[in-house]
């Protein structure tokens, strides 16, 4: 039985697709699934960097597509997760015409034969890179932040993905509960109302991400991480569990003071 | 009798400056920078045309608060369905500033690069500055945005992925451009703690002339919510930074705005403990 093929997309750049792919992938791996992450951002790869694996790249997705190596040879195993997490890096010096949709879809299928979850990190935009990334997918997660431009782009992407009949779920990233409370930021409810997509995760804005990205360490690895629980909940929802969402607005002053940022 | 008056010297055709604002990495503040720099230049009396080159995913209109006034877009003009003047949307806060919106519904491959260059040239005849908001990535959208410009501003945040992408883009821009750098969204407290790259770290890799540094500003979210770019304000660190950058772009000998990375005081530590981002 073939694994699930999920494209992580957004339209707008910089909302957290790559960090979501890395952290969600790592969480699923920690929970015992075999996970392959594929970086579809040819020319501007970053998934390797975010996981700290940039020095171990030998082959990339374009070389697999061109038949210069096997998929297994190109996969880089993240040893911190035993056998469970591997990534297929993008090519850095090519551009997105270097691979066709069909080639990409074939690679995704091959990956799905040896993994439980294949997460595809989609580039920003809706051009060829996006079309490639979506080509092999069976479902989509759209990442947005509670900001006007991100939501507008997410709407466009949800439409495009729906055209391909892929089930779509939404992650609201970089929520700032204190700004929601003062009315300076759209709430999760506002976002869901505007986009009408099924919510699968809410990730609060946290400085942690900058630090962990700098170090190439997914939040899953850190006991002290406040976001670890958040990604764990998202993973559980993906697995089919009904996990309630934390109402961050009710956290209040003391919730943040004692750092007990519950999973959302 | 001969007319002894000398022939008047031919008036040189006006040629405004065409500057592309780019980065490679998405979400670092290209559109916000284009909008605010545009306003800051217009506030100095210059005439400014802002061009949204992000066909399919336009956002410059909404950041400027002009989304309800957009009737025509770049492709309408390129395909000669409408006159350029009819497609330009005048800003509601400053009449020196106009917007040429991107098409929402078309794909970037539909834009002809040569026609885009010609369009930018026409705009340069009418405006002191033409700022082109470049889409994320390095695909066709990027190529078209860059085509008509002969100056570039690259925007980078102090994060590893952004620096890597900007480095790639600077390489792709090639020798035609001598790009200048804006470092955006700096968080001085994190830099101090060693949890974020400093401006020096960023520029050690990029080695570009620095136009300015702008601190992370949650108020930007509010200004985008309202469609009222922060450079419309006269005070505040971010507005001032944009005005200083505009002065520099205009050739004034001013210092590039910087952000102080202070020693952490008890109060700033307390602020961080309470989850504030300032």
């Amino acid at each position, binding site marked *: 039985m073939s694994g699930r093929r999920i494209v992580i997309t957004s339209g707008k750049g910089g909302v957290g697709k790559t960090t979501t792919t890395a952290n969600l992938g790592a969480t699923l791996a920690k929970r015992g699934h075999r996970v392959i992450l594929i970086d579809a951002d040819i020319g501007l790869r970053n998934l390797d960097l975010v996981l700290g694996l940039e020095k171990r790249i030998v082959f990339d997705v374009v070389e697999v597509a061109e038949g210069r190596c096997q998929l297994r040879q190109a996969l880089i195993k993240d040893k911190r997760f035993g056998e469970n997490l591997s990534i297929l890096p993008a090519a850095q010096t090519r551009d997105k015409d270097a691979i066709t949709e069909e080639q990409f879809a074939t690679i995704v299928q091959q990956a799905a034969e040896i993994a439980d979850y294949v997460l595809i990190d989609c580039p920003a935009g809706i051009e060829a890179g996006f079309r490639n990334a979506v080509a092999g997918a069976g479902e989509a997660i759209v990442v947005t932040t509670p900001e006007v431009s991100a939501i507008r782009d997410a709407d466009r992407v949800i439409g495009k993905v729906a055209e391909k009949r892929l089930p779509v779920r939404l992650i609201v990233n970089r929520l700032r509960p204190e700004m929601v409370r*003062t009315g300076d930021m*759209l709430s999760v409810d506002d976002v869901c109302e505007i986009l009408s997509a099924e919510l699968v995760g809410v990730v609060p804005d946290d400085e942690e991400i900058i630090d962990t990205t700098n170090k190439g360490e997914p939040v899953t690895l850190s006991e002290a991480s406040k976001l670890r629980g958040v990604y764990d909940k998202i993973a559980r929802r993906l697995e089919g569990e009904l996990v309630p969402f934390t109402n961050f607005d009710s956290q209040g002053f003391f919730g943040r003071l004692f750092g007990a940022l519950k999973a959302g | 009798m001969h007319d002894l008056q000398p022939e008047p010297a031919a008036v040189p055709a006006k040629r405004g400056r065409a500057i592309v604002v780019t980065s490679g990495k998405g979400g670092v503040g290209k559109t916000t920078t284009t909008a605010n720099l545009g306003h800051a230049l217009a506030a100095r009396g210059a005439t400014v045309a802002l061009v949204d080159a992000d066909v399919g995913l336009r956002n410059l209109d909404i950041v400027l608060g002009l989304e*309800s006034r957009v009737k025509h877009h770049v492709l309408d003009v390129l395909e000669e369905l409408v006159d350029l003047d009819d497609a330009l949307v005048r800003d509601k806060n400053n009449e020196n500033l106009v917007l040429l919106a991107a098409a929402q519904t078309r794909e970037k491959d539909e834009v002809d690069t040569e026609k885009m260059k010609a369009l930018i040239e026409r705009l340069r005849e009418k405006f002191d500055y033409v700022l082109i908001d470049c889409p994320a990535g390095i695909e066709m959208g990027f190529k078209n945005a860059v085509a008509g410009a002969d100056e570039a501003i690259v925007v980078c945040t102090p994060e590893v992925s952004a620096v890597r992408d900007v480095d790639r883009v600077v390489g792709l821009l090639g020798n035609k451009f001598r790009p200048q750098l804006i470092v955006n969204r700096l968080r001085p407290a994190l830099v101090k703690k060693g949890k974020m790259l400093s401006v020096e770290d960023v520029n050690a890799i990029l080695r570009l002339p620095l136009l300015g540094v702008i601190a992370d500003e949650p108020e930007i979210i509010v200004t985008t*919510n309202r*469609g009222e770019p922060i450079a419309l304000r006269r005070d505040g660190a971010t507005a001032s930074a944009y005005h200083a950058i505009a002065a520099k772009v205009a050739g004034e000998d001013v210092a590039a705005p910087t952000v102080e990375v202070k020693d952490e005081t008890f109060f700033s530590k307390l602020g961080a403990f309470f989850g504030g981002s300032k």
Partner: protein
Amino acid sequence: MIEFIKKFFAPQPSSQTAKERLRLVLMTDHLSLAPEMIEQMKRDFIDVISKYVEVDREKIEVSFEQQDKALVMLSNVPILAVNRTKPEEPPKSDSTPSLPRRKRRKKAAASTGAPSNASPAPAV
């Protein structure tokens, strides 16, 4: 001026403003993304209007605009003639008194030859 007074006395939270703006801009985006749907809507619209008035189909304009905080559809329909008769009404489902109609129908058929709209009267 009125906007300034509004803002000064009851400043709306910016998230509310954002929500309203997004609602409108997404509607506009969706409309511009579905030109075929709009063409079909225009055709249906013209068909319905044509039952009542004769229109110059070539010169009809339909557009969408944002006015204040709403999206409105504007149409410009040049009318060439107004039909004399009402369009055909669908048959009524409930029974109605028949006698007066029968009389009228006979009268109408005799004097003008115009088509009768009355449905055959059910036997009481």
